[in-house]
């Protein structure tokens, strides 16, 4: 059995990613304007999302999008959202692709967080 918290210490499995913080305001009768700010870099393990992960996070009609799963240490602060509350952060991969942190589960007791990412570009 793999201990994910140990994998996150192994340079063979992790890479350097960047957080793009997103915040926005509604103006002009409900028009939303989001502002993105390049934030800190962090280490994480990024891999394609399995069917099980997508079902686990229950994305409903968005399941046709491209998804990845990100594992990070508990100390990495990433704001994920389901579109109901605040806007969620984005993650910039080393290949330039940008992903939204749409769902997440905090397994801090086991030494990691698991975050579902949806590709935006």
């Amino acid at each position, binding site marked *: 059995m793999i201990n994910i918290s140990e994998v996150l210490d192994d340079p063979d499995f992790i890479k350097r990613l960047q957080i793009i913080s997103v915040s*926005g305001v509604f103006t002009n009768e*409900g028009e939303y304007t989001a502002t993105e700010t390049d934030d800190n870099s962090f280490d994480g393990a990024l891999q394609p999302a399995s069917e099980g992960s997508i079902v686990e996070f229950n994305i409903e009609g968005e399941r046709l999008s491209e998804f990845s799963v990100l594992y990070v240490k508990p100390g990495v602060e990433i704001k994920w959202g389901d579109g109901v509350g605040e806007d969620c952060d984005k993650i910039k991969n080393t290949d330039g692709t940008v992903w939204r942190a749409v769902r997440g589960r905090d397994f801090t007791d086991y030494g990691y967080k698991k975050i579902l990412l949806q590709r935006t570009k």
Partner: protein
Amino acid sequence: MIDVEAVNRSLRTLIRTLYALPENSVRPAFQNAPVGVDALASVQFMTLKLDGAADEILSNVDLSNDVSSLKCSQATLVFSVQFFKDGAYAKAASLELALQSQQAIDFMRSNKMGFYRASAARDLSALVDSEWEQRGQIDIEVFVIVTDTRNLATYGKFPLEITVDSTTVASEVDDQ
């Protein structure tokens, strides 16, 4: 030309006012934005159809400039209005009547549009899942005046002579 976005914005203002909803709670559809926890509505532009043939007005017919052709017609625009969460279907079902109120008529007149008709209100929450949030939807049709202005090339220069019995008047349409 018609600014569909401006009509959409006016409708959002009107619907928000009619139902006394909070600021920015009636939004354009299909935004990648957080929904929030309170009731909200969205307005989506669907179709635009001209009603009959357009009238044409020509201006600047003095041969010193191009002739300006203004086509003018009434158009009917269809918008899909969706309400979400508390009282969604009740709001959708009562929108047709609300749009016929004097308050709505005054607002639309000042924004150069008018209410035409509405579809039946649909309860979409029942169609998706009984546990899903409540949703109500209705199509509304409003009419506006649309215009299209084009420049037409003027005629070329040619001589003109008119003879009436003993008098001859020679002239020339010049310019161009």
